[in-house]
């Protein structure tokens, strides 16, 4: 399930705004730009994450 860059920005807007609110007003614009750049840089990582299988996870849990 590939995530588009714009889609991430849209979906995580509330979290980004929350982070900006914890930063001094004069630095908010810089932080927002840097977060966007960081997300763009990590887009390939986000889209290459691997999920475990249901029974794989279930078996792991039983072994533990």
């Amino acid at each position, binding site marked *: *399930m590939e*995530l588009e860059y714009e889609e*991430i920005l849209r979906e*995580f807007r509330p*979290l*980004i705004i929350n*982070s*900006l609110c*914890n*930063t*001094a007003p004069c*630095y908010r614009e*810089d*932080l927002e730009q*840097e*977060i966007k750049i*960081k*997300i763009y840089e*990590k887009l390939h*990582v*986000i889209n290459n*994450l*691997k*999920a*475990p*299988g*249901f*029974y794989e*996870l*279930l078996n792991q*849990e039983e072994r533990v």
Partner: protein
Amino acid sequence: MTNALIKSFLEKKSARRLYEVAEKNPTPENIRALEEAFKQYALRVKQISYIKRLIKGYSIDFDKRIRSKVVRQSIDDEEVNYHNLLPSRVEVETEVEPNELFTDERIHRTFQSLKDIQKQLLIYKFVKNLKNKEIARLLGYSEQRVSYNIKSAIEKLKKGA
């Protein structure tokens, strides 16, 4: 089942149904349907938690960088202010006449025999009331050097008294 991911997955009605069907009738099709639904769900959870950590972690890191930058700037400003407030080194040395500092002739003579740096440090310390740290920063000395020279100057004054 204690795994949080499996637990939250099975809270969805459609997922619960897929699981029950696969458990009752474990055909390859039923198992594949459950596996695919779970993989999609688990991947989504992973992506969300990765992006959340990325945004939060980066914001904290950004704040740390800004804070250290602000502290550095304020230290620099402080230095500039001290330089503006204080007379130059030469002025300090000539502005305060040692005989104005000491009424005791012996101490006055001992003071005159001190090294230039020691005289200068004593004036900064006791006439200008600066802290060792401030003196060190002003003169570009280490704090230890300032402290050592002030102590040894005081020792000499005591001996001369």
